[in-house]
């Protein structure tokens, strides 16, 4: 029975991935992408990876999906112009003329098929390496937290996590580069809908509480900085959409502080520990629990701010017509 469920889920994920890439309209692609993310999240749950499921549903399907949806506002008009009959979803016959020629496609398909067979064989025959479960279990009491995934993320392999928080900040900087750095200069004109505003106002404290719960609960169960950060980031995005762009009323230095404090505190704490003769990110066992909690909280706030800023900036790019002339 359980094999049946897993099999159906696997086939569903593959089907959704294929449909997502082959869909005729971009809207379909994006919504199938949401569905694909949720199918994967279910797969993570089936595999016992609840943290990954929350991260996938919240970050990959949720946040990226929202970004893609937002991008549709840019792309969809021309797409429906090219496509005369958007209601039925049928492809007009003249659309296929810019497809690549047949032979390279055949060769590519053949190559991919061969590659798939080899990879299936390789995965089928993978010897059992045993993983690092035993090692993590042995050192878990010394890590200061009770949940093994949090212990790996924030203590055993904190270096990777620190770099990863850096990657988010770099992604934000990179998006600034693309969109111009006149960030938050324009107020965002939001939908003036009383119901929407009330619902957003209702959801703000709920999301905040739930995020804080996930953050604190990450010590002993699934949850932690990233999951909490996405929920808090969702607050920022919702407020932004509801006509309360939090960042535009904030002084610039405060915004910069919020964006960088997670990364900065993480590193400065590491340097401080180095100054006392430990290695970088080597938390003394007696204080590791509280240190990890502080690092996680600040990191979550920073990531939440970065996610909101990524969304808001991508939005602002569209509202900025006079940039187009200045850079071409």
């Amino acid at each position, binding site marked *: 029975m359980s094999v049946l469920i897993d099999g159906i889920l696997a086939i569903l994920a593959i089907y959704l991935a294929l449909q997502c890439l082959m869909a005729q309209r971009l809207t379909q692609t994006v919504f199938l992408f949401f569905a694909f993310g949720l199918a994967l999240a279910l797969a993570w749950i089936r595999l016992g990876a609840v943290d990954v499921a929350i991260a996938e549903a919240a970050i990959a399907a949720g946040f990226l999906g929202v970004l893609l949806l937002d991008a549709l506002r840019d792309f969809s008009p021309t797409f429906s112009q090219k496509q005369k009959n958007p209601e039925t979803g049928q492809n007009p016959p003249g659309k296929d003329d810019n497809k690549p020629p047949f032979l390279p496609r055949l060769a590519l398909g053949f190559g991919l098929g061969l590659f798939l067979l080899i990879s299936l064989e390789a995965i089928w025959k993978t010897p059992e390496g045993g993983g690092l479960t035993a090692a993590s279990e042995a050192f878990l009491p010394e890590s200061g937290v009770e949940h093994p995934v949090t212990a790996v993320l924030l203590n055993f392999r904190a270096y990777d996590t620190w770099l990863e928080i850096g990657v988010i900040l770099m992604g934000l900087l990179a998006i600034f580069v693309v969109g111009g750095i006149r960030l938050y200069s324009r107020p965002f004109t939001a*939908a003036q*809908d009383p*119901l*929407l505003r009330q*619902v957003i106002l*209702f*959801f703000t404290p*709920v999301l905040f509480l739930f995020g804080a719960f996930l953050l604190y609960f990450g010590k002993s169960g699934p949850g932690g900085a990233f999951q909490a950060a996405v929920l808090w980031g969702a607050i920022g995005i919702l407020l932004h959409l509801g006509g309360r762009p939090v960042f535009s009323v904030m002084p610039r230095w405060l915004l910069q502080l919020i964006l960088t404090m997670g990364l900065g505190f993480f590193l400065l704490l590491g340097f401080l520990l180095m100054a006392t003769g430990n290695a970088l990110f080597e938390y003394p066992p007696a204080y590791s629990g509280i240190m990890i909690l502080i690092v996680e909280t600040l990191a979550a706030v920073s990531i939440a701010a970065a996610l909101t800023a990524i969304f808001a900036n991508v939005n602002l790019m569209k509202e900025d017509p006079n940039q187009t002339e200045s850079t071409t």
Partner: protein
Amino acid sequence: MTIKEVITVILLLVGCFFFLAGTLGVLRFPDIFSRLHALTKADNLGLGFIAAGMALHIASPLAALKIFFIWFFTLLASSTSCYLIARFQKEQDQSGNRKEGG
């Protein structure tokens, strides 16, 4: 099989039925308003039945409260988004009509 399990199974089956009906509605109904209708009404009802079934199955008040909140938030979010989509579509239709008329 106790009476509790029977009720759980019945609730789950009814929930699945409503989900199925809702999905069928989304696929088969002609325009966006009736599709939204199918999606939000039938699916929320289905989710409610399944939530009730699960709450009965776990039979702990705290879990029941959590499940209730799941259902409640879904209800809130889906009805709001349904309303927004419908409003957007209506505005589009009106502006489209105006363009065609003028």
